[in-house]
């Protein structure tokens, strides 16, 4: 009984710890302008949606959301396509230098973005991809790829070799076996990897700031950071925009929660 109580208290503390900033953000987004910078009252006296209206009316926020979504979706699709092919090859085809390749993939995924931001800036300029959605999507896919390759290799490794052999013997080409047998069995892995990559792209700030210069390709995090005017910081609008930007992620996580959990623990136990 005491133990259960302890568990619950621990869980409650952890939830409070991680939810408090978000709760604060939500509160701020619905507070009337006058109460924004004073601490009592903690809870707003009336609930107002003016900040939300301002976000969509005063800024090209819908456009930013669309940009963010397009970039994250394309980058995720690209990273999944390449990552699952590479992961499949590394896990099932025994290419020479397999261990070295996987080690290199891990090392690459540790590389801090700051280390590559200026070369990528020059490269994007040279390729004419500066301030384009394509450029940003390519960079994100590149950054997410090591993680995607590594995760997908782990997922494919948990699919028994015999299934791949059976598919080949039953008349599938290499890619046929990949598409008809291996990929359907790696769906939990694809979901988990896709979600991680999508969240990374959605939240990314540094590249989005350096590689974009107008609303043509600007994404939500950079857009929000540029809200403050010369004389004032519009806390209410920033909070409202953050809540709107977080909502899709919460929704995605809620929808795919089961699959992601299955995916992240797949291969841990031999089934």
């Amino acid at each position, binding site marked *: 009984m005491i133990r259960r109580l302890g568990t619950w208290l621990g869980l409650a503390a952890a939830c409070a710890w991680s939810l408090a900033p978000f709760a604060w953000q939500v509160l701020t987004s619905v507070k009337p302008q006058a109460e924004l910078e004073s601490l009592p009252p903690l809870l707003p006296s009336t609930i107002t949606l003016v900040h939300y209206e301002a976000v969509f009316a005063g800024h090209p926020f819908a456009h930013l959301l669309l940009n963010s979504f397009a970039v994250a979706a394309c980058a995720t699709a690209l990273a999944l396509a390449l990552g699952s092919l590479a992961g499949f090859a590394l896990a099932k085809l025994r290419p020479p230098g397999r261990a070295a390749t996987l080690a290199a993939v891990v090392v690459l995924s540790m590389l801090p973005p700051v280390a590559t931001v200026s070369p990528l800036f020059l490269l994007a300029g040279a390729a004419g991809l500066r301030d384009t959605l394509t450029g940003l999507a390519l960079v994100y896919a590149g950054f997410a790829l090591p993680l995607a390759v590594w995760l997908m290799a782990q997922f494919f490794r948990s699919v*028994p070799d*015999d*299934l791949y*052999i*059976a*598919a*080949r*013997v*039953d*008349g*599938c*080409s*290499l890619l*046929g076996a990949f598409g*008809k*047998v291996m990929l*359907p*069995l790696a769906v939990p892995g694809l979901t988990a990897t896709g979600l991680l990559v999508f969240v990374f792209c959605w939240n990314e700030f540094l590249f989005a700031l350096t590689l974009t210069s107008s609303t043509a390709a600007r994404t939500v995090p950079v857009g929000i950071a540029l809200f403050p005017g010369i004389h004032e910081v519009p806390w209410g609008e920033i909070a409202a925009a953050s809540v709107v930007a977080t909502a899709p992620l919460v929704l995605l996580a809620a929808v795919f929660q089961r699959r992601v959990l299955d995916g992240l623990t797949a291969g841990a136990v031999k089934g």
Partner: protein
Amino acid sequence: MAAVAFERIAKRFGPTVVADDLTLRIADGEFFVLLGPSGCGKSTLLHLLAGIEPADRGVMRIGGVDVSAVPPQQRDVAMVFQSYALYPHLDVFENLAFPLRNRGLSGRALRAEVERMAGTLGLGALLAKRPRDLSGGQRQRVALGRALIRRPAAFLMDEPLSNLDAALRLEIREEIKRVHQTHRITTLYVTHDQEEAMALADRIAVLRGGSIAQCDAPEALYARPADTFVARFVGTPPMNLLPAALLAPPEAAAARLQGRDPASVTLGLRPQDLEARDAGAAGALEARVLLLEPAGGFTWLVADLAGTRVKARRADGARLAPGDTTRLAFAAGSVHLFDAASGRRLER
């Protein structure tokens, strides 16, 4: 249907030699068993033939055609696995249909083929189920059906009975033999279980360290093992191997050593041929009883014979107990002789 041949195949994984200049010819319609201890690379030979792994050297032929460079999907072999390897995301119908769909069959023709196959294997009621909802025996029947459905040139079976419990093993073993008798598809069957091999095979190749210790019909393998490895591997319980020097002159005469130096000869005696008698019996080897294993109609008995553990048979074990002295007798014709140094069989 087709003959299958391995010609001078070599394959190694790092330090493990899977095949070293291995040559095997399997006749059209033959049931051929590759028998060897676990982990000796028998399965890899099947993967070589299926085209999943490339051989380091040598040629493989199916129906006389060199298939070494042919990709797996065009080799026209089918495989049955120890793990069943059914596609978990497809139901039984789609598992059976899978090889046919890959060959472009669809619609009514496909359905008819699948239903006919399900009928012959007693799977008719299971077509809509997923593999995880099936028992082990049902899964292996589905796997057999999936392999059989497109009438391949050759069947490759990789220890298909090893995951089944004892009763099912016998049932599926009969099913495999029935399928072979009905369709006469050339079958290459890998196992470490000599009893399975004896029960199924037209011919057996005993593998050791990447080469063939002996290749023969089951009866010949049992009656005339080529060396002590095969002698110990084929037959249950394994053959007793004893130094010939243990024999007193009368028994030596009975074993017909024929002038060979007893120190250079190993005797092989199957436990079935070694009869344990009461202590008083004359003209036999004296041994001390260590254990008794009742086997129903008779009793197996493990005894210590001058420091060597031997297994013998006794028609009735009731009057013997561990620690008793017994006398082991054998018929002259049942003795196998092997060279003590090389282990090769000595002909008499």
